[in-house]
């Protein structure tokens, strides 16, 4: 089973009697781009929050790379190489674009607790940061305040920061949400490119993106797994059509 990089067993989250995630057994294969779909409120973001321990699971276990990480803290999980992005854009608004990405890279220098040191040590990272920014076409904006970027560009920055961490497993929550058409295409390509050699688990409502890059899809509805498989299988699954895609099979055909 070493092909599985991430596996959840009966993962459950209850909020005061309301079950947001219900006995989810998720299996993410190494090297896959795995998409998590489902109607609004299906529990996708909650799932992400559980995987990264931003929420404490009510029940169930999370196994990453064969290690049980259910009891670990968020930061520890991140240091294992599980890096997430957020549904509502999460940048450091008063830092520059460059600093935003550098914060991530800085962790690897091991100087993060050094309050007596200057910033010269960090400047060495700038070249790598700029290269990363180039990828998301933010190089020219490197010295702007992140908070001043348009919404779509903030999302791009967030992805750049996530990528900078060289994650083993990348969790992307609606990476293309709020982006224009061109951006969506670019980000889709980008995800596909960076996914080489690592694993991506993403939540995405944009079927175009999903159909283009997802190797495997899990559909959640009301907290529980509704269907699983590749795009072709899932998109024909009657329950999925009912609960998520809408009842018109014709619409799905149109998406291809």
């Amino acid at each position, binding site marked *: 089973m070493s092909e599985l990089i991430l596996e959840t067993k009966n993962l459950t989250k209850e909020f*005061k*009697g*309301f079950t947001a995630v219900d006995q989810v057994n998720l299996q993410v294969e190494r090297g896959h781009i795995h998409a998590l779909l489902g*109607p*609004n*409120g299906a529990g996708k973001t909650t799932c992400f929050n559980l995987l990264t321990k931003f929420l404490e699971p009510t029940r169930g276990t999370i196994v990453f790379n064969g290690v049980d990480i259910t009891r670990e803290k968020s930061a520890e999980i991140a240091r294992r190489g599980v890096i997430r992005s957020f549904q509502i854009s999460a940048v450091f608004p008063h830092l520059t674009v460059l600093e935003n990405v550098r914060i991530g890279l800085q962790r690897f220098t091991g100087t993060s607790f050094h309050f007596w040191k200057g910033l010269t040590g960090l400047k060495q990272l700038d070249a790598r940061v700029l290269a990363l920014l180039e990828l998301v076409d933010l190089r020219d904006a490197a010295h702007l305040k992140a908070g001043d970027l348009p*919404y779509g560009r903030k999302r791009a920055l967030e992805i750049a920061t996530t990528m900078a961490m060289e994650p083993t497993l990348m969790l992307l929550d609606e990476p293309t*949400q*709020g982006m224009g058409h061109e951006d969506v295409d670019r980000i889709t390509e980008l995800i596909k490119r960076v996914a080489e050699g690592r694993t991506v688990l993403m939540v995405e*409502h*944009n*079927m*175009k993106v999903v159909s283009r890059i997802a190797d495997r899809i899990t559909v959640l*509805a*009301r907290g529980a797994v509704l269907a699983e498989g590749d795009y072709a299988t899932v998109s024909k699954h009657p329950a999925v059509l*009912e*609960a998520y*895609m*809408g*009842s*018109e099979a*014709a*619409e*799905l055909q*149109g*998406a291809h």
Partner: protein
Amino acid sequence: MSEVALQITDLHAWYGESHILHGLNLSVKKGQVLTLLGRNGAGRTTTLRAIMGLTGRRKGSIRVHGEETIGMATHHIAHLGLGYCPEERGIFASLTTEENLRLPPPLKNRRSTPMSEADIYAMFPNLAERKHSPGTRLSGGEQQMLAVARILRTGADILLLDEISEGLAPVIVQALARMITALKARGFTIIMVEQNFRFAAPLADHFIVVEHGEVVESFPAAELPAKQAVLDVLLSV
């Protein structure tokens, strides 16, 4: 029947710094059912929220029964006869089902006969059973019913319904459809945001497709078959 209940012209709306609606226009006649279609994130929910004055900044014009509401406080807007059922349902966890139901006060400018609690419980027997349990202990479908039921007893005559069929079992969806037909017969004006096309199609008098905060298509129900191809492109999920 040709009186305009709600008229929106050149509406812009923002959430903080993000500009969501870019000059949206629409108008609904009294007693009509209007359905807003569009992809996720197109701005349909935002349109409803903007009508209620719940977005950040708003610009343009929104007339409810002829009265301009841009610049009006939310609670005053409501009293013009609006009933809002939000996408996230907005059931209050600290209130019982009954308290949730009784929360909205009767409106000052009542334009429709409010439904009595008995009528409502007759329409949604599930709710009657669960009167005293906390609102969020209800199943998703029951919560949805409660959210709709809640605005029927205030005397509102324009209902803003955001994805009320979302996450519901087909039977309930069918019940909702019957309810909307019934409400229409009572003279309610309804603006629906719908993802579930099969649910919306037979109910609506008029369709509007929203994309990037603008209206890109607007047509009466009669033209629906003709527009099917366009819709497929616009709504390709």
